Structures are given as structure tokens and as C-alpha cells.
């Protein structure tokens, strides 16, 4: 049943999307758009070339490298601290205020700080990405842990499962829905921050490539890279959506049932 639904292709939607691209193409070629915006055909050609000759594709690797490492670090830290804070009141109290004050700081404001200590390389980027992805995931984990049915923990205690063991086998799985939601938010933010740090002060990655092309006035590759970020974002969204469904397979949303 669920498999059938997955194959349901949104024909009118895709047709509309293709139609938009065609309209874009025509208006650009007719010269109705500013000369700063080349027609899609030229952009896609540049994209294809850039991937084929490695100009763009090498940067994709750099971007994804920083992205996944930053996201992984953030996840490990946020989930751990979130579970601890959610389970043990003293831990919660201890960190509560620090979290409240540090959380609203936009991660991008940390870029100059990071540059100061780590220069312009991937490490600087990874630290900013980790910082950015950490907070939403921490909050979601907290809520996920707090929303746990106390009954689950009581049942576990009945069977002699307590302490760290209980945390791993009962708390973590129960909080997983909240954690997954937070993870997907963090994943989106992480991509934005990755591209941003590369754009503002990078020496590699797609964002860096974009600013380079802009300065060199090579517009088609610049647009190609911008389009690429959208494609990347789209694919990552889809990837994590599927991950969500599979990991938290017991929720109604994962089974395509109404909530």
C-alpha cells in the first residue's frame, strides 16, 4: 500500500515546473530579462560542463564533507546533552540559562569568531555548522524526552532496566520522533550555513565557487552553482524524509496514515 503511494507521480506539478522553465527560457532569449540573467539552457549547459570537467563537482565534495561532519558532530552533542538535560533535573537546571542566552545568537555571527581562531579552512566551517545545527536539535531532543510516556520507563524499571541502560534502550527510542523532527530542521539549517560560510569566507565548496564566479563575472557557472545548491537541498530533504520514515517507522505519519 505504502509503496503504491510512493510511486504516485505529481504529473500536473511536474508539467507546471517544466512549463516555468520554458517560459523562463523564452523570456530570457527575447531579451525581456536583464542581461544579468542568462537563459536556463545556458545555465544548465554550464552546470553540465562544470560537473563533467570537475570544476563544480570537486566543490560539491568539499561542501558535503563539511556538511556531514558538522551535522554528525552536532547530532552527537545535541542528542547526548538533550537526553541528559531531559532526564536529570539538575543537568537541566545547570544548563538552562546558558542555552536560553546562546540559542538566539545567529550562527552566522560566529563566523568572524571562527575565522579568528581557525582561519579560513574546512575546520572553521565545520565549527560554525556544528554550532548552527546544535541548537534546534537540542531543543527537539529535550521536548522529545520530556514528552515520553512515563509508563514506558516504569515498564522498563519493572524488568530491571535502569540508569544508562534505560536511557539507551527506552528513553532514546521513545524520544526518537521529536529527535527526528529536530534533526531534519538541523539538516536544513546546516546546509544553509555551509553554503553561507563558504560564501562569506571560504576557500572551497560550492558557496566559495559562487562568489568566485561572481567576482570573475562568469555568470552562467555562478547560476549553475546556485541552482545546484537548490538541487542539493532538495535531495538532502528527500533523503532525510525517507530516513525519518524508516527510523521512526511506528508513527502514523511514516505509515501514510492520518495522524
Amino acid at each position, binding site marked *: 500500500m505504502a509503496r503504491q503511494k510512493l510511486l504516485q507521480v505529481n504529473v*500536473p506539478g511536474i508539467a507546471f515546473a517544466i512549463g516555468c522553465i520554458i517560459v523562463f527560457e523564452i523570456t530570457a532569449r527575447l531579451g525581456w530579462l536583464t542581461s544579468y540573467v542568462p537563459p536556463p539552457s545556458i545555465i544548465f549547459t554550464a552546470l553540465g560542463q562544470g560537473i563533467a570537467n570537475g570544476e563544480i563537482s570537486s566543490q560539491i565534495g568539499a561542501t558535503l564533507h563539511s556538511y556531514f561532519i558538522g551535522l554528525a558532530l552536532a547530532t552527537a552533542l545535541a542528542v547526548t546533552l538533550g537526553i541528559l538535560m531531559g532526564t536529570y533535573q539538575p543537568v537541566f537546571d545547570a544548563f538552562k540559562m546558558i542555552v536560553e542566552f546562546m540559542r538566539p545568537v545567529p550562527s552566522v555571527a560566529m563566523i568572524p569568531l571562527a575565522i579568528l581562531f581557525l582561519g579560513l579552512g574546512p575546520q572553521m566551517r565545520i565549527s560554525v555548522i556544528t554550532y548552527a545545527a546544535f541548537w534546534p536539535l537540542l531543543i*527537539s531532543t529535550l521536548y522529545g524526552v520530556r514528552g515520553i510516556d512515563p509508563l514506558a520507563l516504569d515498564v522498563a524499571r519493572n524488568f530491571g532496566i535502569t540508569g544508562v541502560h534505560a536511557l539507551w534502550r527506552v528513553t532514546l527510542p521513545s524520544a526518537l520522533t521529536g529527535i527526528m523532527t529536530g534533526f531534519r530542521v538541523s539538516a536544513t539549517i546546516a546546509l544553509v550555513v555551509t553554503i553561507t560560510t563558504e560564501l562569506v569566507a571560504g576557500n572551497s565548496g560550492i558557496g566559495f565557487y559562487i562568489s568566485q564566479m561572481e567576482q570573475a563575472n562568469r555568470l552562467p557557472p555562478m547560476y549553475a552553482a546556485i541552482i545546484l545548491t537548490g538541487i542539493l537541498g532538495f535531495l538532502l530533504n528527500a533523503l532525510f524524509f525517507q530516513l525519518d520514515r524508516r527510523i521512526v517507522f511506528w508513527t502514523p505519519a511514516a505509515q501514510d496514515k492520518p495522524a
Partner: protein
Amino acid sequence: MSISTRAIASQRQADLPAASIPQSTRTAKGTALSISTVVIALLAWELIARHMHSVYVPSVTQIAITFWHEWFSPTFKEQAIPSLYRMFFGYIIAAVCGIALGVIIGSYRFMFRLLDPVLQYLRATPPTAIIPVGILLIGIGDWMKILVIAFGAFWPILINSADGARLVPRERLDTAKIFGLTSFETLIRVIVPSALPQIAAGLRTGLAIAFILIVVSEMIGSTNGLGYYILQAQRTFAIPEMYGGVVLLAILGFLLNTVFVFGESKVLAWHYGQTARTR
């Protein structure tokens, strides 16, 4: 991915309360612990900074003095105010367009299907990647930032409003029909209030994005503003000023969040009451 499961997932997000941290039973002991960790952290910083004598790590007192000096002076008007009004302008544009278009798209099933792939792609594009295009087309004035912010904040508001409009229970729409309400009346008096929790979630995300984008757009293409200030401070090694700027951003972010949460709790009091009951 099925449209309905995405809507449910986004509703899950909307149900997350707006307050940043779940309020536990506030004990005196708890509050004391919270404050003491902050104090300890600041003290530790101070001691390490004095010990290190590094330009990169000014002491807390140094930062505090610079902060006091800088931000209670014309600098605030020159740097902070422009950032704020650019952000608000862009945010308002995004909010008005996002809610209006979102609610309309969500109410008409076919339109939603039609626009879905395009919307999914556009919202996945990191808005910061648009900045170079913005600079090319509009230059580095106020409008570039305002439009970039509007572009970035628009998507979560649009998508959430559309989801909210789609999730209105069938019975409410039928009730409106039974009592003879026109399509427009139904939209305004039934769909929009029903979708308000979702819309609020979108506005919340949009605000966070707007805040990020103002800083970034000022770092990349600006001659003033908080983003420019912080980056410039780093470049000219005015380190305490740089930290001071970050602290100011933290305070502004905190204030924005608090005001938003307060407003939301007033407007959505009925929603919290209802969901609290069913939990």
C-alpha cells in the same frame, strides 16, 4: 514523498510549543543552579582570558566595557537601526505575501498539486546563495537586503500557511457551507483562524531566517549594519568590538524571540488550551 505525510510532519512541528525551553517546576534550588553555572562560566572565561593575554580572547570585563562604550553611543543608531528596519521590512513583505498566497494555495487542492514541485525546489535553495544574484541585479543598497530577507523568510511562511489551510477539518468547511457562507467569507472566517497555529509556526521559522539573512547579507554586501560591523571588527582586529557585536546580536535575538512568543501566546491562547487538553 506523499503530500499528506509531509503535512502531518509539519503539523508535528507546529505543535512544538514556542517557548524555547520547557518550563519545569521552578524551584529556588533550580534557579540558583542555573544562575551559578552562568556565573561560573563567565568567571572561568575571565580567568582564562587574563591568564592567556591573547588578543583573540579578551576578558569579560574588557568586552563589557567596550560594549557599554560602543552601543550606548551613535554607533547603535548607525549600525543596529539599519539592520533592524531592513529585517522588519523584509519580514513584513514575506509575512503578508506568504500568508495570503499560502492560504489560497492551501485551500485549492489542485493549485497545491500544481505548484508543489516548484515550491519544494525553491524552498530547498539556501537563501544566502541568492545574495550574489541580488547584488548583481540591485547592488548593495537597502533593497538588496530587504528583498533577500523577504525571499528567505517567504518560503517557510508560505509552506506552513498552505499546510495549515489544507488541514482544516472537513466538518468546519461543511459547516460554513451549510450556513451559506461565500468562498471568501469561508476563507477569512474559517480557514485562516483554523490555520493560525500553522501560520504562526511558519512565522516563527521565517523570523529566525530573517535574522540570519540580515547578518549574512550585511557581511557580504554592505557598508553598514550589524553584520558588516562584526566582520569588519574581525578584519581590523578590533576584537573586543567583535565580541561586543555578537553579544548585541544575542540580546536582540533574545528580545525578538520573547516578543514573538508573547504575541503568539496571546493570539493562540485557544490553541494551547485545546492541545493541552488533548495531550
